[in-house]
């Protein structure tokens, strides 16, 4: 992977507590899976930042290699890959996701 791309990904996930690599933007998601994750984060009122992989082919391919995870969206919490759409949805539905945010003090007070 290109070193610049790797550094850019690392900067995104290490300088933001909650960061989402997605297709589109939170206001205009361009994929149903990305949209679902945005809706969950919005519902929980967790502040998050995002990268639109459709704007950068290097990031779009690079993030899959970086995490060894073949699909987008990818949600990172405190620098760790937490999951894609299915995992985040499942964790939200059984309350695990809320616990993670609570334990990391990431819920909006």
């Amino acid at each position, binding site marked *: 992977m290109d070193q610049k791309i790797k550094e850019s990904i690392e900067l995104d996930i290490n300088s933001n507590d909650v960061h989402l690599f997605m297709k589109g933007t939170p206001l205009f998601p361009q994929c149903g*899976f990305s949209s679902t994750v945005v809706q969950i984060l919005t519902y929980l009122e967790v502040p998050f930042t995002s990268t639109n992989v459709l704007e950068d082919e290097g990031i779009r391919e690079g993030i*899959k290699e970086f995490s*060894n*995870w*073949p*699909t987008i969206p990818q949600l990172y919490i405190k620098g760790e*890959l*937490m*999951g*894609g*759409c*299915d*995992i985040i949805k*499942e*964790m939200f539905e059984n309350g695990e996701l809320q616990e993670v945010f609570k334990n990391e003090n990431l819920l909006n007070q």
Partner: protein
Amino acid sequence: MGMTKDELFEILDNGFSESVIEIQDLAGDNDHYAVKIISNEFKGLNKIKQHKLVYDVLGKKMGYTLHALSIKTEVPKE
């Protein structure tokens, strides 16, 4: 692009021995599936690692041959 439900089942069935695999065809276009895999191989792994095992079994097909796959993994109940 895409693959039939039978092809997908065979790949997963070969990859996870002694498991229960359910596949749901979501759109009828050979490209959107939901799979549920119940296997002992997931024991002790977090969700990310469980799903990574599924992706490992699918190999390069995920993201190239197959675009949309919804995954649910479970450990068999004792």
